[in-house]
């Protein structure tokens, strides 16, 4: 369904991505992992249509993918994915309203009743039926992401893009969300791309794992080479030693989150 042919992405003379050649079939669940700033989010933005490759082609059904967001591709961001001025129910119903042609984006009459039924159904599925009259700021982080997913699903996308959707959640809630996403993926037969920086999450979820990393380094010009997909692994056929090897590659330092590690050493 999706094919990338020798994609490069540059910002001025900084290369972010290079030599991306992949193809993805309908119904696959791809997780994208890599260190921060390695271009995995950039690749997701290309799939979404808000960034385009500097060179190379990104094809959806053998056609160049549209360079603006549309209803083929649903998205859940880490933050700001729902509309703060609408209740939970209104947020989901808005998905129906936006799917119709029209000027105002408001629904009336029969269309409104239909949208309400569909919205209640999907809110039931994601476990939010007890909170339909609440506003997003009254929800917990996990509930807000459930809402964002419900909203995206009602838009009936073929491809669901998840940009570190559970990055801000507690581990316990994260496990629930994993289960939810897997269930919905099977039910709706979606093609899912999920960016995460949690390698374990990448291994646990999905059918396919991509690791983004730089293979070429120029110490004099760190931005001369970009990252590419260094591993493209089918899930379920990997042994632990490979997991540790990738884990070490992504996080070569034992102590993460040490601020001093990120400060430049020389000027």
């Amino acid at each position: 369904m999706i094919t990338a042919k020798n994609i490069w992405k540059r910002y001025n003379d900084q290369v972010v991505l290079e030599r991306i050649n992949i193809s993805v079939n309908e119904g696959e669940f791809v997780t994208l992992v890599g260190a921060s700033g390695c271009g995995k989010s950039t690749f997701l933005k290309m799939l979404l249509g808000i960034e385009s490759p500097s060179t190379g082609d990104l094809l959806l059904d053998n056609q160049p993918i549209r360079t603006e967001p549309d209803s083929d591709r649903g998205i859940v961001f880490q933050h700001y994915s729902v509309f703060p001025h609408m209740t939970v129910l209104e947020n989901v119903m808005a998905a129906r309203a936006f799917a119709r042609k029209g000027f105002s984006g408001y629904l009336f009459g029969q269309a409104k009743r239909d949208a309400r039924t569909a919205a209640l159904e999907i809110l039931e599925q994601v476990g939010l039926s007890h909170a339909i009259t609440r506003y997003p700021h009254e929800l917990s982080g996990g509930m807000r992401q459930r809402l964002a997913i419900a909203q995206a699903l009602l838009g009936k996308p073929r491809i669901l893009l998840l940009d570190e959707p559970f990055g801000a959640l507690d581990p316990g809630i994260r496990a629930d969300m994993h289960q939810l996403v897997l269930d919905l993926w099977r039910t709706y037969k979606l093609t899912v791309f999920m960016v995460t920086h949690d390698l374990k999450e990448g291994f646990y979820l999905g059918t396919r794992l991509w690791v983004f990393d730089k293979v070429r380094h120029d110490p004099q010009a760190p931005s001369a080479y970009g990252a590419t997909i260094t591993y493209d692994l089918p899930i379920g056929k990997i042994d632990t030693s490979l997991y540790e090897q990738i884990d070490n590659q992504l996080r070569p330092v034992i102590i993460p989150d040490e601020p001093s590690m990120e400060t430049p050493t020389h000027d």
Partner: protein
Amino acid sequence: MKRILNIKPSRFSALCLGLLPLLICVVIYMIASDLRLEANPNDKLLPSFSQMGEAWSRMALTPNVRTGEYIFWVDTWSSLQRLLLGMLIAASVGLLIGLLTGALPLMGATFSPLITVLSLIPPLALLPILFIVFGLGELSKVALIAIGITPFIARDIQRRTQEIPIEQLIKAQTLGANTAQVLIRVLLPQLMPKLLDAVRLSLGAGWLFLIAAEAIASTDGLGYRIFLVRRYMSMDVILPYVAWITCLAFILDQVLALLSRKLFPWHVKGGH
């Protein structure tokens, strides 16, 4: 002993502390007024509260001998009409311009420089032009308020529009929304509380333009009255009028704040 930095007054003592300076001002005024009136009972500069009360009841509670009108209320009504009409026009036009220039990069590129230039013109300098173009009637006063405040509101709303996270616009588009739907369903409702805030902030300027316009050419209005009686040094009329204008400004501000809370319960700080 706690650091003074950490000492917080209770609700009641905060209220007392807040009233204290006001009370002191009133007492100082009364003493100064008494002293002057004792020296010269015909002194007009610092009238006593009873003199002000008499003047006020003459304006507000007794019909005018010549016209039969209650001048105080006629003045209030005319001024409020002008102010509210001007603010309404400024808010509507400002919202429209701000929304379009903030949300659509094409509109922003085209009109932002023009709005910036227009907002730099001192509105009072335009007053003579307005009098020439629109005459000395109501229109020129309303126009001054509208012209003076629209650029401020437009720029504020433009900035607020751009502050709305891009993620929301992308999300709406992935659900199939077209440009009009994003503007009307996603951006506009979120801008309404911001608009009320902008109107509250610009009410002060609104009063300024109103009183200036009324002072120069009018036949009624709060600003007209205080500039008229200035000729007779009628401080006993001017001071109640100033207090009344302040009171009106306070009420308008509070009404807008209340509206914002009631109409937009989702608009809380830090919510997203």
